Structures are given as structure tokens and as C-alpha cells.
């Protein structure tokens, strides 16, 4: 029995492949839907894959072990008008009590004077933050010229700034700008250093910032609106980050006497989390694309079914001859089913190659970092799906063919 099934599968396949090559042009046209569908899957997947790979590399450069602690307000409280804060005292507490932290710095956004920076006739919008000297060790930014903030700058509330390279360009500062004064709001600040260029991440300029001493910004901000700060730190090498975060969490919860059902008013942001957020985005784009492509594959499948039905009608006589010579219904069924599947699989293979090519072209013109990779799962998925499409849409024509009455089929002209 098994032998007979195998035999009919084999004979069916041979006949199917012969027939596909006999109508090579039509076969190619038939399978176009599948080709386009699969090519788009492969293109989208490889672009997404390359993109997240590139982003992963960039995040690695940023320092994957950097952690930011931020105040966090859940939506429920937010609607009640409450905004949680992290204070400088919290920062001091963590700094003094938690072991295993290598570098830690408080960071505060300047909001007393908008975001406008001026130099002569030039002005630009930028992000102004106040922080401490250790910040450069946490974030890994180093001066190409001049120096970073010092503890004295902070202690004396000096009006000095460390400037990102984009700001330098936008304000058209001279090539050696250390010692120049720029205007932030109504306050003059002296440029003490220029940062290395970091490039852009997710299309965001990473060099558009101005850093001033923490105490300077805090005093300029005043205390009437908010004391909220962010805390950035880098753990010592070999320290379990999760454990460290837990220690900080319980310290802060204890300080504010939070009991179990109450939620944290702060959250930890790690590079790992950012990467995950990004991969969530790329994943959902991939899924949407896969859905769209799924529809196009189904349309492709209908194309195959259509041509297979035409083919059955066209080859009615041939089927009659085959039956008169002893072909069983099963052999005929297998032949048409295999033919549909091979068409679809052929479309899948061509689609994969085409998709690879398209992705290559896209990668050539898109300045994303990361290399062109088509993950193996995408290839297997594309092949598997097109095979299934072939079988699903081939079954109706195949049954039609196998059910033909040999006498009628022989009489068919």
C-alpha cells in the first residue's frame, strides 16, 4: 500500500514537472503572484533584521550597561494630576548607600530658558541638561577639545557648557570655540569643551545637546516647578544588574514607605530595554508586512488555482488517455497536486532570490548600519507557506481532474 502511494507520488511528480516545463512561460506567469509575495516578505524581513542589527550595534556602542532611573507616573495617577518625582536627595541616598555602582550622576533638564541657544546671529534649538562630572564616565562622552565639567564647576555653579558637535555646527561657532560665550535664554555661558561626534540613532541626532553643571541648572530652574531629576549610573564590572536595581528599588521604596500594592514611582531604563522596545517595533512592522504579504500569497494561490483549473480542462483528453492506459485517480490527483505545489514552490524560490536582490538594492541606498541578512526562518516560512498555498489551492483542480470519467475525457476535443 505504502509502496503504491509512493509510486503514484513519484509518477505524479514526474508528470507534473514535465508538464510545468512544457508550459514554462505560462508557469512563470502563474507563479508571479507567489514570487511577488515571497519577494516582499524576504525584502521586508531582511530590511527589518538589518535595521535592528544595526541598532543593536549602536546600542552596544552606547554602553549596554548604562542604567537610567527616571520618575514614573502611571496613567491612573497622571489623570489625577499627580506627577511623581525623583529628587536630588534620592540621588544622594543611592550614591551613599548602594554598593556596586561604579559611576553615578544626577541629571536635570533645563527649562527656565526654553531650548534656544544663541551665538551671534545664529540660534538653534537643543537639549540643555545639567549634570555632574561623573556623567562623562557613565555615558562615555569625551571631549575632542577643551574639557568636560569638573566638580568645581558644579560646586561653584559656574556658567560653563560642554557642547555637542551638532550644536557647534548649527551655531556656527569658530573652529576652536573653547572660551567663546553662548546665550541660553538670557544667560551667558562659556564654552569649555566640545564633545566627540556620536552620529545618529533611529534617525535622531545624538550630538544635539548642551551640558552645564548640575547646580547651575538647578538654581536657574528654581524650585517652584519641579525638582525632578534623572539618575544615570554604570555598575561595577561583574555586578549583577538586576540585583543592583533591586537593591535601589527597595532602598527607594523603604525611604518613601511604600507597601506592597503600591507601585514604584520610578523606573529603570537600560540599553537592553531600549533594544527590546526597538525590536518590538520592528517585530510589529514585520508582522503587519507579513499579513499584507499573506494576502498577496493567497491572491497568488488563487492565480495558481485558476490556471490549474484551465489546465485540467485543457488536458482533459490527456487525462482520459492516461486513465485508459491504467492511471488511477490517485495518480492523476497526485500529478495535479504536485504540479500546483511545484509551481508554488518554484514561485517561492524565485521570490526568495528576488527578495534578496531587492533587499540588497535597498541596503545600497539606505544608510542603515548592519549587513544584509535573510534569516533562515524567513526562508523556511516562505517555502513552507508557498508549498501549503500550492496544496490548498491545487486540491480543487486536482480533485476535478481525478474525478473525470475516462470515456467523457477521451471524447473531449
Amino acid at each position, binding site marked *: 500500500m505504502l509502496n503504491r502511494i509512493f509510486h503514484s507520488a513519484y509518477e505524479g511528480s514526474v508528470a507534473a514537472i514535465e508538464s510545468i516545463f512544457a508550459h514554462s512561460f505560462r508557469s512563470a506567469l502563474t507563479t508571479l503572484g507567489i514570487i511577488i509575495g515571497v519577494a516582499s516578505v524576504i525584502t521586508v524581513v531582511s530590511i527589518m533584521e538589518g535595521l535592528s542589527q544595526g541598532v543593536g550595534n549602536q546600542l552596544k556602542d552606547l554602553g549596554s550597561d548604562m542604567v537610567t532611573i527616571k520618575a514614573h507616573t502611571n496613567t491612573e495617577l497622571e489623570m489625577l494630576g499627580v506627577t511623581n518625582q525623583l529628587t536630588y536627595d534620592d540621588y544622594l541616598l543611592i550614591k551613599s548607600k548602594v554598593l556596586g555602582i561604579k559611576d553615578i550622576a544626577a541629571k536635570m533638564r533645563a527649562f527656565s530658558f526654553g531650548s534656544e541657544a544663541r551665538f551671534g546671529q545664529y540660534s538653534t534649538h537643543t537639549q540643555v541638561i545639567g549634570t555632574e562630572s561623573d556623567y562623562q564616565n557613565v555615558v562615555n562622552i569625551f571631549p575632542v577639545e577643551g574639557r568636560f565639567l569638573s566638580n568645581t564647576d558644579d560646586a561653584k555653579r559656574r556658567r560653563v557648557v560642554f557642547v555637542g558637535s551638532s550644536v557647534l555646527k548649527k551655531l556656527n561657532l569658530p573652529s576652536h570655540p573653547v572660551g567663546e560665550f553662548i546665550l541660553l535664554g538670557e544667560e551667558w555661558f562659556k564654552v569649555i569643551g566640545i564633545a566627540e561626534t556620536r552620529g545618529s540613532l533611529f534617525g535622531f541626532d545624538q550630538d544635539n545637546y548642551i551640558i552645564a553643571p548640575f547646580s547651575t541648572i538647578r538654581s536657574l530652574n528654581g524650585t517652584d516647578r519641579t525638582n525632578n531629576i534623572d539618575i544615570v549610573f554604570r555598575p561595577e564590572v561583574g555586578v549583577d544588574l538586576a540585583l543592583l536595581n533591586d537593591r535601589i528599588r527597595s532602598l527607594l521604596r523603604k525611604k518613601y514607605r511604600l507597601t506592597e500594592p503600591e507601585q514604584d514611582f520610578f523606573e529603570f531604563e537600560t540599553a537592553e530595554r531600549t533594544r527590546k522596545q526597538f525590536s518590538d517595533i520592528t517585530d510589529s512592522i514585520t508582522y503587519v508586512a507579513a499579513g499584507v504579504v499573506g494576502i498577496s500569497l493567497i491572491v497568488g494561490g488563487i492565480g495558481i488555482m485558476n490556471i490549474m483549473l484551465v489546465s485540467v480542462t485543457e488536458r482533459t483528453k490527456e487525462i482520459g488517455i492516461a*486513465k485508459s*492506459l491504467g*492511471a488511477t485517480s490517485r*495518480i492523476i490527483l497526485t500529478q495535479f497536486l504536485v504540479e500546483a505545489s511545484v509551481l508554488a514552490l518554484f514561485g517561492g524560490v524565485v521570490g526568495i532570490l528576488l527578495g534578496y536582490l531587492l533587499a540588497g538594492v535597498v541596503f545600497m541606498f539606505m544608510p542603515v548600519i548592519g549587513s544584509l541578512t535573510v534569516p533562515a526562518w524567513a526562508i523556511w516560512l516562505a517555502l513552507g507557506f508557498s508549498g501549503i498555498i500550492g496544496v490548498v489551492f491545487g486540491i480543487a483542480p486536482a480533485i476535478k481532474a481525478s474525478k473525470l470519467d475516462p470515456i467523457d475525457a477521451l471524447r473531449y476535443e
Partner: protein
Amino acid sequence: MRQSNAIIELKGVSKTYQIGDEGYVALKGIDLTINHNEFVAITGPSGSGKSTLMNILGCLSTPTNGEYQLNNQNVANYDEDQLAHVRNHSIGFIFQSFNLLPRQSVLQNVIHPLKYRSMSSVERKRRALSALDKVGLGDKVNSFPSQLSGGQRQRVAIARALVTEPEILLGDEPTGNLDSKTTQEIMALFDQLHEQGQTVVLVTHEQDIADHCQREVRLVDGLLASDVSKERVSWGLAC
């Protein structure tokens, strides 16, 4: 003796076609025995039921009633797969319009029925070549049907029928599309096969073809009208 020698035995075979609400009776109870190595013509006017009989003999359809013993097996109640098996092993069909596959070479056409058997491709080819030799087309194996004359095409079809070494060769107006000279050649080939022991059954409405056979079974209105065995008329005299 006659009993054991029978290849085909029909007993009370009838066939009714359902056309709309009405049943059309094509065969009204046929008793017919054909022995090994007979050369039989089935004749009759159009509508006499000879095509229906031919389809039943060839296991392309089954009788509505009655018994059909083919080689001592009652095939009247066989299912489709079993019938396919019988067609592949016991019957060699030859059609009026040859029914060759145009896209396949002569050799592939002859191999075709062997594809439905488990057999090595070497063996298939060997048998196909030997069948083509028998019909005198050993030199045309790689041609395509469109490159052959009508007579040659029918020879290919006969080779295809012979390649399975069937119990009976069943010809449905095998010379209907051929001119008289080619008809003569094809009939000579049937003669030759018959002399080699092949049972041949031809359905025809041409009297000279029927006269050429050993025995003429004549159908009229779905009934056996006459069944005459006779001395064969040599083809040369008929012309």
C-alpha cells in the same frame, strides 16, 4: 475446452444511461464469449451500442447489469482503482484518433502505460523499444507524433497498446482516420499480431474491416443481431 479458453465472457450485460429523467438503454442483455487468439470485429450501425460494448470490454465503464468475466475475473463490480489496474494489465487500447501525447516523443508515448507499474526505467525502455520494433518503428523512437504520418502514429499507438503485453488488443475504429493503403498496412499488422497469438477485438462500421476478421459480432439496437465466424477474407481480395 471452449470454456477454459475464453478470455472474455459476457452474460446478460446491459447498460442504461441516465439522460435527464429518462433512462436510455444502450445494451439490452448481451451474451458474448471471446476466446483466446480470436480476431473479432464488432459491427453495427450508429446507436447500436457498439461503443458502449467497447467501453465495457475495455473496462472504461461497468455494465448496469450482468456479468463480465475477463480472464476468469468478474470485473463487472470492480471499483475504479481495480478497473484502472485491469486496463493497465489486460487491455491494450487503440483509438481512431491515435490519442498520442503530442508533447512526448514516440518512446515516451510507448513507455506511458508502464509508468503506472513499479518497474525500473531501464526495463520500461527495453520493453518500449521491443514493442516499437514489433510495429516496425524502431528507427522513430525519438520523433514526436507531429513528425509522423497517420499510419506511423497508429503504429505508435499499437506499440503503446502492446507494451503492457495485454490479454486483448481493443481497437476502436483503428483505421477510421487512415487512407486505404495505410489501412491495409495496419490491418496487416493486426494479422501479424494475431498470428503471434494476440487476441484482437476491433469495433468498426466498415464492412471490409469486419470481413477481414475471423468473426463478426453485429449489434443492432443494443442486442446481438448476428455472430458469424468465417474464413478470413484476405485483404488483397477485398481491395
